[in-house]
């Protein structure tokens, strides 16, 4: 009977990989958000409870993870803007490739601006 053999990985270009990243970062942010709403809800319980949990956010490991989260949000948000421009701006389709690299560049710039400061806070 006919089957669907796996074969090789499709070699898409930036359009495809940006979507893969967008999807992965979207899922990551989603799960973080679930946790984040819950932990923030602890403020309703008691200051001690909240502070205890938020304290863990300040440990180096979670601190680093936060860095990843910020990177994910940066990419997801900026690429989201790129997607919106592709959808609504006449020339968006034409410049999608360029826009992807702009997204990467801007995300990197902001990240470079943010990371040292954040690390200083975490480790300092």
């Amino acid at each position: 009977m006919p089957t669907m053999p796996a074969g090789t990985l499709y070699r898409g270009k930036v359009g495809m990989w940006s979507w893969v990243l967008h999807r992965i970062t979207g899922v990551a942010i989603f799960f973080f958000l679930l946790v984040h709403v819950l932990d923030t809800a602890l403020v309703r319980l008691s200051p001690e409870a909240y502070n205890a949990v938020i304290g863990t956010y300040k440990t180096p490991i979670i601190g680093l993870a936060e860095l990843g989260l910020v990177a994910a949000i940066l990419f997801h948000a900026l690429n989201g803007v790129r997607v919106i421009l592709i959808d609504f701006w006449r020339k968006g389709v034409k410049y999608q490739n360029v826009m992807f690299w702009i997204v990467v560049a801007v995300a990197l710039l902001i990240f470079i601006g943010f990371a040292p400061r954040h690390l200083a806070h975490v480790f300092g």
Partner: protein
Amino acid sequence: MSVVIEQPRSPRSRKGANWEKYGWMYMRASGALLVILIFGHLFTNLFLGEGIKAIDFAFVGGKWSDPFWKVWDLAMLWLALIHGTNGMRTIVNDYASKEAVRKTLVWALWGICAVLVTLGTLVVFTFDPCPAGAAAELLPSFCPAS
């Protein structure tokens, strides 16, 4: 010409109303707003002042005493959760091959979303920055020392 126009056939699946268009529009509208909301949120919480170090009950209490931040965080909560859940729904629709599994997962997603949105909203509205009986050093500076 002998060609007669036949009544066009019906589309492939027409199971009730379909919200895909609105979902698609929502993702873009909420996405655009979220850029401002989330970047603002991250900027004030993680970048300004002491960054993550400064976050504690007092910090949150201080922020939420201002209606501006209340609205801000509420908007963010609603927009982001619905955006995220709808995005997750898309992904589930893509990859869940069994209809039963797909249905369950989508229901679960919206369930979680509803719970968290309600919880979050209640917290923001019923939040008391100066709960009685808490240690004063944990509270925002404006709380009356009890």
